[in-house]
């Protein structure tokens, strides 16, 4: 009896509500934001994995990634039925922000990159990233981008 009432309830609900939407539609701009950012970071980490990166050019590249990811996050946050994707973008933004913090925690001195002494003031302008960190961090970022990109692709299923 309860099952029958439930089934009737579903039918009434569906007939009154039109199409059911539980998740935002596939968005080509969201997809482009993610693939562009993945491509840009791939180039940076490609060179970073070969040799230590330091200096203002590298720092401004990292700032650029953080800015792009912050914009992408705000874009996703503004859409309805999009909490999952917005949460993913927030994690990507935080992961990219960590790179700048790491840059400032290290010090480039005499052609080598090493952690600053305890108590020493952090300074991104004199900072750097080591090859080992870049190898590992790129593995994380690549996986994060692939998850977010494939999530957006899943939404294409809606239109099939």
């Amino acid at each position, binding site marked *: 009896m309860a099952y029958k009432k439930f089934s009737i309830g*579903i*039918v009434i609900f*569906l*007939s009154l509500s*039109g*199409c*059911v*939407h*539980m*998740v935002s539609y596939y968005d080509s701009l969201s997809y482009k934001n993610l693939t562009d950012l993945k491509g840009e970071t791939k180039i940076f980490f490609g060179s970073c994995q070969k040799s230590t990166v330091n200096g203002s050019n590298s720092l401004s590249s990292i700032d650029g990634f953080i800015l792009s990811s912050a914009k992408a996050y705000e874009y996703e946050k503004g859409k309805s039925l999009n909490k*999952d*994707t917005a*949460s*993913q973008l927030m*994690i990507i933004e*935080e*992961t990219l922000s*960590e790179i700048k913090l*790491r840059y400032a*925690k290290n010090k480039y001195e005499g052609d080598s990159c090493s*952690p600053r002494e305890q108590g020493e003031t952090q300074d991104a302008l004199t900072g750097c990233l*080591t*090859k*080992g*960190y870049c*190898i*590992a*961090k790129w*593995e*994380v970022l690549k*996986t*994060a981008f692939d*998850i*977010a990109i*494939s*999530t957006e692709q*899943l*939404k294409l*299923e*809606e239109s*099939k």
Partner: protein
Amino acid sequence: MAGMSEFLDTLLDGSVDFARDELKNLINEAKGDNRVFIKHIGELTEEFIKLRALGQLTNDELRELMEDVIDLNKMQFHKLSVQAKVRAERISNGIKSLVVDSLLSLI
């Protein structure tokens, strides 16, 4: 190629009380999983510990990277959530179109 035991031997003094077997089992279990994502998480964990053993990462960097791996799990959870919602949406709309709109108007 050295395995987890060798990496842990490099990192830990033999007398240190650490759950080596539990960590090795955890990583092996993940790497042996038939789900691509879980397998990948196991491989990443092993690779990062290896980089630490080789002196290419500091403790602080390893901590950051392990927290990143936990975040990747959260991202995957959101992906699975979207996948489930898309499926539920397709079924609901199929019921609406085929049963409510079509079948019920014919019987």
